[in-house]
């Protein structure tokens, strides 16, 4: 009945049992050493320690072992402050405090593939994958599905069911605008010239944790999927594309001097990139001008939307009222006009742009999903809630011990792995008994295949929108430098975890992980959780009367200052990490006070400035980076500075001791515990902030032994 997973994770029950049921417990009555009688308190104390250090109640054999004359609790403790139960116990404390699991979705437009069902040449349904907002040379399909409503009979757009009556799409048209690709989620060897290791047929030993949903494995007629049909632009494999200008100018704009963009997309696909790609540089491919203050049109995106991309749902909403078949004034029967050229596109047409970035999707017709579609994630429907992979809903006992397995939306794939990364990071800290300060300062982490795909490629799609106007067209100083990602992990290697010794100079323990930055999406939320969890302090408002005020500086506004005088400088450490994101804004391009972002004569900042700089702290000479106003110095110190500064405070060690001690005692720490906490803190600091020292000190303390100090007369009167 007991099935062993292929790679049983560190915290699995089996490993706990293996660690805790050594052969010494197999007592033979004839040769058993002499026993001694223990008191009820002895048994209870052992049960308590066993529960805390092994993660379960002791077995009969373990209890019998304690009755041997040569058994020693201290030795037993020494042997159990290292095992998986101990690691899980400590991890649980900080997971309870930080709650690093996602109730969020992550659907990066450049990375998200949707799937449409159209009528093939024989009239039978067939699937075609596409990206929302993909730029295409044809006006009839630019930023829409690659076949027009006139060609398919359907209005196809992300976020909503297709509308219309499907009509047969001739093979010639299909071949012209779509192509077949053997994608990474179906082929282990998707990078080879002729992929042959199909999932379920030829893929040697697929990871048991990697399970695409059935919908990705079969065609509408039920036959197994061996290749997927993808819009041709999405199927392109190059790393670098070019800014495309269609020649469609915005209403009222002067005639642009358009350099022709590449008209035809280059050929893809598996291991066969089309045109040779220009070299990729970590620096911007061409300097961009910071938009002049007062301008109102420079920050428009190609589709005429504001600089910050509109959510997918808004595209669907715009198209929803109309039906296919309704006479349309737009080419191909599309329901809305094709995007016009932004000023940026007109000025930079033909310039190179990295395909993995947001700009690759927004500005280039020759940027696709890469070889084997490795820059994109599949889904089985028209929105990012469509299922893609199986993984557990509940896994409270850790990896390898799921309570279930469910079809999960594509948009939860990466958040799921972010959480696993955070747990790994904590587990490593406690397993290896590393300096606990690394929780806020460490550079290392652990990645598996999906995380490798994320850090190498997908995270780059977060950038760059308004940032491009400041010269950042691709992330220049990412929190996790893609160069440091292990190169030999494939997206489907879900069970293979590799240590990354150094994520990059801006990395800072948990603080720069996507899980932390998305869970605590704003700079203030990030600062507040540090204050609560790592300094054991709370924000308590004073009794000041809240009078109407237009004072933007909350550190001095009456009624707000009590908390915000502390919170704002903490939040400032995170000013360089964009809210609800992990795009890092380097100091050179985004100075804390930017003299190019000035108020115009109407008191406004221009769009890109407004997205990143705070108009409340702007004047005629410049503006302050959002969240930085209370402490520009902290902003420049970045989250790494927060980690360094907090771990250097005396509160940090004392707070760690309080959090762990409180958890082991099962009650809040009170002033009665001052002596205990002082002693434990002193030992903890002397040991180099090692949790093992702290836990040994706690479980050997008198307070712990008496933590369930109810005499037998007050013990529950159950029979």
């Amino acid at each position, binding site marked *: 009945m007991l099935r062993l997973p292929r790679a049983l994770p560190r915290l699995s029950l089996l490993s706990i049992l293996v660690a805790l049921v050594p052969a010494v417990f197999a007592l033979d009555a004839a040769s058993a050493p002499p026993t001694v009688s223990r008191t009820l308190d002895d*048994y209870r104390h052992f049960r308590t320690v066993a529960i805390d250090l092994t993660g379960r*109640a002791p077995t*009969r054999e373990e*209890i019998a072992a304690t009755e041997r004359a040569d058994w020693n609790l201290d030795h037993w403790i020494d042997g159990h402050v290292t095992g998986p139960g101990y690691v899980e116990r400590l991890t649980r404390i900080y997971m309870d405090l930080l*709650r690093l699991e996602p109730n969020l979705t992550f659907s990066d437009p450049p990375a998200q593939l949707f799937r449409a069902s159209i009528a093939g040449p024989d009239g039978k349904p067939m699937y075609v994958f596409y990206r929302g907002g993909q730029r295409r040379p044809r006006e009839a399909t630019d930023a829409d599905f690659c076949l027009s409503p006139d060609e398919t009979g359907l209005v196809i757009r992300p976020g909503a069911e297709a509308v219309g009556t499907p009509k047969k799409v001739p093979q010639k048209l299909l071949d012209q605008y779509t192509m077949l690709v053997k994608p990474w989620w179906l082929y282990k060897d998707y990078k080879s010239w002729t992929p042959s290791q199909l999932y379920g047929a030829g893929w040697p030993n697929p990871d048991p944790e990697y399970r695409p949903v059935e919908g990705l494995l079969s065609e509408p007629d039920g036959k197994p999927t061996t290749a997927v049909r993808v819009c041709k632009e999405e199927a392109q494999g190059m790393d670098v594309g070019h800014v495309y200008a269609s020649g469609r100018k915005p209403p009222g704009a002067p005639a642009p001097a358009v350099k022709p963009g590449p008209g035809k997309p280059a050929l893809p696909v598996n291991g066969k990139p089309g045109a040779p790609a220009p070299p990729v540089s970590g620096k911007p491919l061409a300097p961009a001008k910071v938009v002049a203050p007062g301008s109102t049109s420079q920050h428009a995106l190609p589709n005429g939307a504001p600089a910050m991309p509109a959510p997918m749902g808004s595209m669907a909403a715009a198209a929803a009222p109309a039906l296919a078949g309704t006479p349309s004034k737009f080419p191909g029967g599309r329901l809305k006009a094709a995007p016009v050229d932004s000023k940026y596109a007109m000025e930079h047409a033909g310039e190179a742009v990295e395909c993995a970035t947001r700009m690759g999707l927004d500005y280039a017709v020759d940027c696709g999903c890469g070889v084997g579609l490795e820059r994109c994630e599949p889904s089985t429907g028209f929105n990012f809630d469509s299922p893609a992979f199986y993984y557990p809903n*509940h896994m*409270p006992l850790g990896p390898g011990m799921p309570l279930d397995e469910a079809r999960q939306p594509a948009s939860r794939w990466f958040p799921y792995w972010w959480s696993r990364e955070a747990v790994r990071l904590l587990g490593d800290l406690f397993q290896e008994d590393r300096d606990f300060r690394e929780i806020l300062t460490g550079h290392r982490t652990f990645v598996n295949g999906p995380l490798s795909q994320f850090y190498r490629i997908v995270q780059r799609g977060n950038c760059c929108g308004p940032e491009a106007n400041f010269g950042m067209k691709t992330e220049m100083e990412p929190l996790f430098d893609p160069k440091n990602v292990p190169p030999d992990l494939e997206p489907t290697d879900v069970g293979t975890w590799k240590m990354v010794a150094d994520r990059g100079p801006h990395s800072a323990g948990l603080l720069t992980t996507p899980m932390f930055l998305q869970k605590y999406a704003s700079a203030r939320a990030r600062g507040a959780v540090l204050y609560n969890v790592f300094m054991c302090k709370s924000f308590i408002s004073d009794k000041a009367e809240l009078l109407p005020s237009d004072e933007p500086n909350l550190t001095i506004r009456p009624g707000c200052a009590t908390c915000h005088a502390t919170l704002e400088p903490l939040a400032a450490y995170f000013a360089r990490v964009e809210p609800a994101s992990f795009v890092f804004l380097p100091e050179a391009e985004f100075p804390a006070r930017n003299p190019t972002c000035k108020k115009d004569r109407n008191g406004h900042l221009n769009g890109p400035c407004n997205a990143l700089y705070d108009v409340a702290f702007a004047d005629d000479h410049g503006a302050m980076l959002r969240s930085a106003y209370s402490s520009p110095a902290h902003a420049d110190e970045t989250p790494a500075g927060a980690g360094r500064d907090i771990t250097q405070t005396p509160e940090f060690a004392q707070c760690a001791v309080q959090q762990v001690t409180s958890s082991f005692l*099962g009650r809040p720490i009170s002033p009665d515990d001052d002596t205990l906490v002082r002693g434990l803190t002193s030992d903890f600091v002397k040991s180099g902030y090692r949790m093992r020292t702290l836990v040994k000190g706690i479980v050997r303390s008198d307070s712990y032994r008496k933590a*369930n100090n109810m005499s037998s007369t007050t013990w529950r009167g*159950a029979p």
Partner: protein
Amino acid sequence: MVPPSAPLPLVANGVAAEDTARKENLRMVPPEVYMRTYLQLFGGLLPVDAQKRAKAGDGGSVFDSWDDYVSALGFPDYRFDIPRQTQTNALMVAAFERLGIALCDRALEHDLKGKAPLPVQDRLIFAFDLPKGTVDAKAFGPRFDVLHRTFLGYPAALAPPQRTARFFQLYRDLVSEHAKTSPKSRFTPDEAGWAGVCYGLVRHPEFHLY
């Protein structure tokens, strides 16, 4: 009408020592510990395997699915910022009961109702031989001690004085009730008696607190 008067001094009726020692509440066993212990008692199974065995597909309906119990057992849900429960509640106690009965019944089937007798060392919970004939207090004691150690972590001899006697009475009552006219049960009266003792221990407050 009672006229006002000076208060009378309180009369001492006795002297009692005041216990000023700090008292601590017992802690609830964390749900992770409960579940690991449960799985270990089930033979070291993975959760999905334990669920399969507990459901068994025999129409017993003694177990639903872990997903149905996970919040009732007090697990936190970090996704929704739901903290862990640190005190029991009615729903949790009901979940303990249902899970406990599933464990005892399936363990009894595994340990005592196999086609061939299972060696004692291979038994999950009932790691003793069932005596032939009527079980008296003398025969009950050591077997109860095995179960007591299994669930509560210490010898029955150290428990409150009446515990073994009360559980023996429970056993006898169950055997006697079960022996009445054709109860619809897959257990013999003896087996039902031992299952009942198991129910009592797996739901005992000492099993859920520490």
